[in-house]
């Protein structure tokens, strides 16, 4: 692992002189809060947590980190599910929570400029009076931050139609790992040069720290209709999804839950879901006449694929309840199991029946229950592997099972992560999804941004690599001579 020296008092003092006493957390009791993110089975204590309130402060901190070669991990709300904000040993955590101002709202141009600590849902809150919304809607949207969304390229149920965070980020102000400040993209489209904003979004904090983000907002559609269809199993529900797509429709969202997930959601929020083997939630939005026509079509397709009950949410309150059950599904699994692991694989939609039966087989083989919640429209699976940590060996078995499911996704031509990121959790799977030259090329891009590997250095990639400026002109790093790292 690439890490700096433990912090000495001189450096802590320097951080305090930049941030004041309230901006530096270094007592062990308080540091505990930051030892993990939403992925709680990995924990590392940081040396210190810094809470800057301005871009200048972020720059000053990163300058010191660069000078002293101290690794840093930027953190938003800490809701990530892959350990992206897990601290690095001997490193600091840069919490952007206090940089939470909405700096500019420009309705005519449909742009909003925010600091990274702004909460996702607050962007919509700020523009809904004008009937606009911020489209990416991860299930944690009431608490997760835009900075974290940028790092992970967060999705959500509605990205089927509206795209991901990267679709809605037009520009960024970024503090690079050497402390310099750059602007990527901008308020206008196609700024000259490489699309580095496109590279930065989804880079999981490994390329620098975003301090300002220019977002695109979207006008609310004329109407929204949400349909709930109950099927005997996920196979029939999956066939209905294929039918909807084949009919040339692009719904705002298509979500699927299996029976175990439905039971959990019912136990937690009483969403009044029908008790069935496969539940489909289809949301259509757009002009009234179009949506009404398509809704009839979706009903027909559902029935012809075996749906035995179809409901259309009649009021906003009913619609909200339908979504509440879906968005609470992960946490709800806590009602039916003491512990669980959430995975985030993606498969081509057509592989769904085959992958589902494989998951079922693995579940039986390993004696572990798996609940399934999907963004079915785009093939994003969230299998929840249920286990009990108190039973010796079960956590390891659950983890192994969740990785086997990801291998199924790779074999089906899919991906190990659709929206949660690779982070700490899945970096060992990267070598199964990508060939060595693919990963090496990504690492070369990383070297352009962060030659000393200070920004979230241990995440995403399975093997650390060092960045030599030119072959033959470098001094070997101790890790390299020890055979623990490679260099380009």
């Amino acid at each position: 692992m690439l890490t700096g020296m433990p912090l000495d008092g001189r450096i802590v003092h320097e951080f305090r002189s930049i941030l004041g006493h309230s901006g530096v957390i270094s007592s062990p009791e308080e540091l505990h809060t930051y030892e993990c993110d939403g992925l709680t089975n990995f924990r590392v204590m940081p040396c210190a947590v810094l809470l800057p309130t301005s871009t200048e402060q972020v720059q000053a901190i990163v300058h010191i980190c660069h000078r002293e070669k101290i690794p840093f991990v930027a953190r938003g709300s800490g809701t990530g599910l892959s350990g992206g904000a897990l601290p690095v040993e001997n490193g600091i955590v840069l919490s952007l929570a206090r940089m939470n101002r909405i700096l500019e709202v420009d309705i005519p141009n449909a742009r909003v400029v925010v600091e990274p600590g702004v909460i996702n849902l607050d962007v919509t809150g700020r523009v809904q009076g004008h009937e606009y919304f911020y489209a990416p809607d991860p299930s944690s949207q009431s608490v997760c931050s835009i900075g974290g969304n940028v790092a992970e390229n967060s999705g959500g149920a509605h990205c089927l139609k509206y795209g991901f965070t990267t679709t809605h980020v037009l520009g960024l102000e970024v503090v690079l790992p050497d402390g310099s400040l750059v602007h990527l993209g901008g308020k206008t489209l196609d700024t000259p040069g490489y699309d580095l904003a496109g590279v930065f979004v989804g880079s999981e904090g490994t390329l620098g720290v975003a301090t300002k983000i220019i977002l695109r907002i979207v006008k609310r559609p004329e109407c929204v209709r949400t349909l709930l269809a109950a099927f005997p199993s996920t196979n029939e529900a999956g066939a209905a999804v294929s039918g909807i797509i084949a009919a040339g429709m692009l719904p705002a969202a298509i979500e699927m839950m299996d029976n175990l997930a439905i039971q959990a959601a019912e136990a937690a929020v009483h969403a009044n879901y029908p008790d069935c083997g496969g539940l489909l939630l289809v949301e259509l939005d757009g002009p009234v006449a179009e949506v009404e026509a398509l809704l009839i079509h979706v009903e027909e397709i559902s029935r012809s694929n075996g749906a035995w009950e179809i409901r259309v949410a009649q009021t906003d309150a009913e619609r909200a309840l339908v979504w509440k059950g879906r968005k609470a599904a992960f946490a709800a699994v806590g009602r039916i199991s003491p512990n669980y692991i959430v995975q985030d694989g993606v498969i081509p939609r057509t592989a769904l029946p085959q992958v589902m039966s494989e998951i079922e087989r693995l579940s039986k083989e390993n004696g572990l229950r798996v609940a399934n919640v999907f963004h079915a429209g785009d093939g994003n699976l969230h299998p929840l592997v249920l286990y009990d940590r108190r039973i010796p060996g079960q956590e390891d078995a659950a983890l192994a099972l969740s990785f086997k499911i990801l291998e199924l996704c790779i074999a089906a031509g899919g991906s190990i992560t659709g929206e949660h990121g690779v982070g700490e959790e899945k970096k060992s799977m990267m070598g199964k999804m990508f060939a060595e030259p693919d990963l090496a090329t990504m690492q070369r891009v990383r070297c352009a941004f962060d030659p000393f590997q200070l920004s979230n250095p241990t995440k995403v990639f399975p093997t650390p690599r060092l960045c030599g400026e030119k072959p033959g002109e470098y001094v070997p790093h101790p890790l390299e001579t020890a055979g623990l790292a490679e260099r380009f």
Partner: protein
Amino acid sequence: MLNETENLFRGLLGSEAVHRTSPADAVSAVQPQFIVEPATEQQLAAALRLAHESKLAVIPRGGGTKLSWGNPPSRADLLLSTARLNRVLEHAWADLTVTIGAGCTIQTLQQTLAQHGQRLALDPLWPEKATVGGILSTNDSGALRLRFGALRDLIIGVTIALPDGTLASSGGKVVKNVAGYDLPKLATGALGTLGVITRAVFRLHPLPRNTRSFSVSAGHPDQAQKLVLAIQDSKLAHVALQIHFRAETPPSLDVLFEGPEAGLDAQATQLRSLCQSAGISEASPNVWNARQNLWPPPNSAAGVALGDSPEAFPLAIAKISILPADLAGTIALIRRAADSSHLRWKSLLYATGLGWLRLEGPAENVHHALISLRRNLEKSGGSLALLHRPAAFPAFDAWGTPADSLPLMQAVKRQLDPSHILNPGRFLSGL
């Protein structure tokens, strides 16, 4: 020396894959010596590596329709053609994705997709000749971008060959995927300066069941601006919105709708009530050829304006990018610059804030107008890229002033193309 190098390529790729160039192969008046046409991605990567080892400057070429975009190359030794990588590798129609060789033309791609009622939801220039690799490298997009996004939003996977012979894939074959860096976006719009795209994977959209186009006449640019903002701020589900401006006639807007018939009637009614006093009429789908019609037909001599302009004036075409609320202000700037330089002009702007400007007149005057326009657009956060320039045009950088991220872009370039063999001198600030 030339023969020696040429023989190395023949040895590597076979004789049929290496040809001498003709004057028609010149790139912005710089003459490369030979063309190589690898038959596979592996061959292309090997050819690139050989060029790198032989310190030869490489100009990647697809259909050649936009080969003059960008600054003239500082060196050009060989054209690396993707013409033989022209297969549709996999149309996974039920998953709405396609994997395609970089040398496939857009027309062939669209015809293949149409067999299953699908399309790449993009309207690039010269689809019958333009290739996948070419439109990606130049980031070409048209009116459909308003609804479906640009290539960066449609590409989900890419394979690129690097000068050291690496063949690297990133992204994948599924629409939703955040594993690893988003190199498809890095390759898009990089003008072939980081690597040569050998294949791409796109997300697809269904072909529309019905389409309807409407034209709205506006009295003056301010009214056009108001209409654009009103339509954008409305609940209409239009897929494209463009505005024509020209010196002598009042501006007009075109609006495109797609969808089920019932929905379209309601949309038309709403558009009418929104436009009220402005004249509105159903339009031919041909209005969406307006962007391509700004150009002289491909292969006509540069500087000879054809089509609706009978006189042979030097001709320049620029892509501009502004904020959507600055359309009218930008037109005022264009008018002032064109009038003071005695130029004929025509502009096509989209509701996204992207647009196209055609200027005709003596080269010196065009040059003068472009300098002042770029200065003003950049001042308000916009940009101007000169894509088509007359022969014997005074020095004018095609891309404009780089942002503070230039050193970072240069670092990325150094990592992937350390000896600057790919399209040298052509992109922003020599990237």
